[in-house]
C-alpha cells in the first residue's frame, strides 16, 4: 500500500471547491454537527432509521418533503395527485433541469428504478410501499405509480423515499439494497450519487462524515457550505464537546442539560414538539398474565381507570422531563390527523378515587406485576417507568421494573411476551390510521404488529380497514374520530406525554427543531 494522506487531499479538494463557491455564496461556513448516533449506511433504501434518513436527506432527495407543520411540499416532484380516471394510480410531475452529483440528468426513469429498488426484497422501506403494484415513466417528467387498490394516503409514505440515478445503479450493480446473506458490501453503503444540496466528501463511519455544498443544486444555495458530522454516543461527552467549542450544533441534548446550556454565554437552545408519543399499555385480553399467573387485573376497566388516576403526568413533566414534554391523554401527536384536544385533556391524579376503584375491582390490597421498560430508546424512558412504579405503589400495585435494551424490549412486545410496558410511537404519515394499523388493529391481515395490549375488537378492525381505501376525506375523518372515542373509552393506552426535542447550538446559528427530528442544514442561517 502506498502512503496516502487522504485527509489532507480531501482538505485541498474541499478548499478548492470552497474557493469556487466563494464567488457566489456570501461566505463559506462550516457547521460541526454532533448527535448520538451515526447514519448506519449511505444506501438510501437499506435502513429505515431516523439518523440515517436525516443524513441522507442532505445527499439524496425525495419526491415530496414534509414541512414542519406536517403538510407536504414539493421537492423532486412539483405536483402529485390521484389519477382522475383511476383511483389506484398516483401521478407525479417531476422537476425539470435537476442533475445528479455525477452530472446525469434526473428523469422519470430514475424514479421508476428507485421504486423498483425500494420495493425489492432486501429493502428496509418495503413496508411503506406494500400497496405498490408497479411504476411507469409516462414521459421524461411524469411518473405513474400503480397501486394494488385505492391508496389515498400513499403520498404520505414518500417523505423518506430517496431517488437514485438509474444509470448509476446499473453501472455499479446495486439494483437491490444490502443483502447480508451475500456477505459482500454494496457499493452504495459508502458511495453516493444523489441530487441533494450536499455532496459526500469524506465518510468514516461512526467517526466523521464530511459534506460539501453542491454548487449545481436546483434550489437556493444554503448558508452552510460544509458539514462535519460527528456522532458522540455519551451524553456527557456530547454536551462537553459543545461547551468546549469543539462542535457547533448538538442535536440530542439531554433534558437536564438544557438549562445549563441556555445559561452558557454563546450557546442557544431551541425546543419543539417531536412527532412521538410515550405511553404505557397492558395486556387487557389474556386470562392469565405471565408475571401474575391465573389472573389478569388489566381486564377490569376499574383497574385501568385507577392506573390512569395514579399517573401524575405533571410531576413527570416537571421533574423527570424538566418541563420538556407535553402531557396528554390521547396517544397521538397534536399535528397528526385525528388529534382531538377534548380527548387529549387529562385529569389530575386522584389516589383516593383510584384506591376505591381498585377495591371495587376486587383488588383492595393491589397486586404485583412486571413493568417492562426500554432503557436506551426514549428520553428518560427508564426514569419515567421508575416514577410510575412509585405512583402505582401508592394505590397498592407493586410493579417490578424490568428495564432492558430496546433490542430485547421490542421483540418481547411484538411477540406478546410482556404484560405491562412502556412504548413510544411516531407517526411518519401524520395520520391516525398509522397508529390504528400497528397498535390497535387485532394482529391479523398483516396489521396489529405492535398490538401489545392484545386489544381485540372486530367492529373496530373493520372501521380501521376501511380507512385505507376511503377516498372521501370527511367521511374518513369521522371514522377516525369514532375509533379514537372507542379507544379512549376502553383505555387501550395510558398516554404519558409527547416528547419535546431540544437542539443546542452556538448562538450565532439559527436552527429550527424538526418534528421528526430530521433537521436540514439547508435551513440553517447565521446571525
Amino acid at each position, binding site marked *: 500500500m502506498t502512503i496516502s494522506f487522504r485527509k489532507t487531499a480531501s482538505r485541498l479538494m474541499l478548499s478548492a471547491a470552497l474557493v469556487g463557491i466563494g464567488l457566489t455564496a456570501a461566505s463559506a461556513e462550516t457547521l460541526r454537527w454532533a448527535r448520538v448516533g451515526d447514519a448506519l449506511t449511505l444506501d438510501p433504501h437499506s435502513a429505515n432509521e431516523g439518523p440515517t434518513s436525516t443524513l441522507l436527506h442532505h445527499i439524496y432527495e425525495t419526491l415530496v418533503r414534509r414541512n414542519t407543520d406536517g403538510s407536504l411540499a414539493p421537492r423532486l416532484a412539483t405536483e402529485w395527485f390521484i389519477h382522475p380516471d383511476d383511483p389506484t394510480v398516483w401521478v407525479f410531475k417531476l422537476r425539470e433541469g435537476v442533475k445528479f452529483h455525477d452530472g446525469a440528468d434526473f428523469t422519470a426513469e430514475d424514479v421508476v428504478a428507485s421504486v423498483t429498488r425500494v420495493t425489492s426484497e432486501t429493502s428496509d422501506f418495503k413496508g411503506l410501499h406494500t400497496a405498490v403494484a408497479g411504476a411507469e415513466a409516462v414521459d421524461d417528467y411524469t411518473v405513474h405509480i400503480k397501486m394494488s387498490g385505492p391508496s389515498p394516503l400513499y403520498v404520505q409514505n414518500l417523505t423518506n423515499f430517496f431517488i437514485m440515478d438509474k444509470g448509476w445503479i446499473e453501472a455499479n450493480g446495486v439494483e437491490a439494497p444490502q443483502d447480508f446473506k451475500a456477505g459482500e458490501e454494496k457499493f452504495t453503503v459508502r458511495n453516493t450519487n444523489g441530487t441533494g444540496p450536499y455532496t459526500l466528501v469524506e465518510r468514516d463511519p461512526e467517526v466523521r462524515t464530511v459534506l460539501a455544498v453542491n454548487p449545481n443544486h436546483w434550489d437556493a444555495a444554503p448558508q452552510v457550505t460544509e458539514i462535519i458530522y460527528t456522532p458522540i454516543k455519551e451524553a456527557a461527552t456530547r454536551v462537553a464537546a459543545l461547551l468546549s467549542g469543539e462542535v457547533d450544533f448538538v442535536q440530542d441534548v439531554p433534558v*437536564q442539560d438544557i438549562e445549563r446550556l441556555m445559561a452558557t454565554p454563546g450557546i442557544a437552545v431551541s425546543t419543539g414538539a417531536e412527532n412521538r408519543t410515550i405511553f404505557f399499555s397492558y395486556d387487557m385480553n389474556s386470562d392469565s398474565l405471565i408475571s401474575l399467573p391465573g389472573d389478569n387485573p388489566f381486564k377490569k376497566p376499574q383497574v385501568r381507570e385507577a392506573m390512569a388516576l395514579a399517573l401524575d403526568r405533571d410531576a413527570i413533566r416537571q*421533574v423527570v422531563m424538566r418541563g420538556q414534554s407535553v402531557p396528554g391523554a390521547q396517544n397521538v401527536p397534536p399535528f397528526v390527523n385525528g388529534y382531538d384536544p377534548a380527548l387529549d385533556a387529562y385529569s389530575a391524579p386522584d389516589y383516593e378515587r383510584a384506591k376505591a376503584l381498585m377495591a371495587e375491582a376486587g383488588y383492595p390490597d393491589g397486586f404485583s406485576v412486571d413493568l417492562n421498560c426500554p432503557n436506551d430508546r426514549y428520553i428518560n424512558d427508564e426514569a419515567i417507568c421508575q416514577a410510575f412504579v*412509585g405512583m402505582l405503589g401508592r394505590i397498592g400495585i407493586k410493579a417490578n*421494573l424490568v428495564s432492558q435494551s430496546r433490542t430485547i424490549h421490542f421483540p418481547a412486545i411484538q411477540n406478546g411476551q410482556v404484560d405491562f410496558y412502556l412504548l413510544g410511537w411516531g407517526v411518519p404519515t401524520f395520520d391516525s390510521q398509522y397508529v390504528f394499523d400497528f397498535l390497535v388493529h387485532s394482529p391479523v391481515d398483516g396489521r396489529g404488529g405492535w398490538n401489545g395490549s392484545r386489544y381485540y375488537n372486530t367492529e373496530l378492525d373493520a372501521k380501521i380497514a376501511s380507512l385505507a381505501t376511503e377516498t372521501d376525506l370527511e367521511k374518513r375523518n369521522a371514522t377516525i374520530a369514532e375509533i379514537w372515542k372507542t379507544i379512549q373509552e376502553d383505555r387501550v393506552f395510558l398516554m404519558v406525554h409527547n416528547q419535546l426535542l431540544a437542539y443546542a447550538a452556538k448562538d450565532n446559528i439559527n436552527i429550527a427543531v424538526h418534528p421528526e427530528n430530521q433537521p436540514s442544514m439547508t435551513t440553517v442561517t447565521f446571525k
Partner: protein
Amino acid sequence: MNRLARAWDSDIAWSFRHSPVAIVAAVVALLIILSAVLAPWIAPHDPFNPASLNLMDGFTPPMEPNQFTGNVYWLGTDNQGRDIFSAILYGARISLFVGFSAVIFAMVLGISIGLLAAWRGGWVDSLLMRIADVQLSFPSILIALLIFGIARGVIPPAYREEMAIWVLIVAIGLSDWVQFARVVRGAALVEKSKEYVQAARLVGAHPARIVLTHILPNVMGPVLVIATIGLALAIIAEATLSFLGVGVPPTQPSLGTLIRIGQGFLFSGEWWIILFPSIALLALALSVNLLGDWLRDALNPRLK
C-alpha cells in the same frame, strides 16, 4: 481475657496501632460498613420502596427546602426524589453485599481449585492452571458481560430483578478467583514439601485434615490480603458493570448505580447527585485498599 491481651500484643495488632493510615482506614471502612448494615434503622427514608417516594421531591439541593414540597434533605435528592443520604446507606449495603459475596465466592472457588491443583499435581494441576491462565488474561469485564448474557437468557424475566445481584456476584467472583488459586497453589506446594506435612502424610493423616490443619492456616495471610484488595475491586467492578447497563435494577440502586445516574447530571448543576455517592464509594474503596496495603506489609515478616 488472656487471649484478648495476647491478641492485643500480637505483631499484627502492634503494627496496626502504630499505623495511623491503617487506623483511619479501618475507622472509615467500619463506619461505612456499620451504617450500611444498620441502614434500615438509621436511614431517614427507605429509598427502595418506590411507593414512599414523591417525584416532586426530585432534585432537591442539599440542606435547602424543595421548591414544591418544602421538604429538606441533608444531601439532597436524586431525579426520583430519593433522599441521597438514605440512598447511599442502602446503596452501600448492596455494594458491600455484592463485594463481600463475590470475594467469598471467588475465595472459596480459588482456594479449592488451588489446593486441588497443588495436592493432586500432574495433569489435574496442568489443566487447572491452564484454565487459570486463560481466565487471567481474558478480560474480566468481558467475562462478566458474558455471564450477564447467559443469565439474561436462562433466568425468566420475572426473577431477574431479584437475580441481578446474584448474577453480579457470580460474574465478579468468577473473574476474580484466579488470584486466590495461584497464591494458594504456590503456598500449598511449598507447605506440601515441608517436613511436617510429609510427616503427617506418612503417619496416614487424611489429606483433608492435613489441608485444613496445616496448609490452610499457612496460606491465610496472603489470601486475606488478596481478599481485601479484591473487595475494593469488586465494589468498583460492580459500579463499572452498572455503567455498562448490566448492573442492579435502578429501583434498588447500588453506589455504582447512583454514580451512573448522577453522571447524567454532572453538567446540569445537580452536583450533589454524583458527588456524595462518589465520595462514599471513594472512601469505601480507598479505605479497604489502604487496609489491604497495610495488611500486606504487616503480614510479610521480612518487610518489618
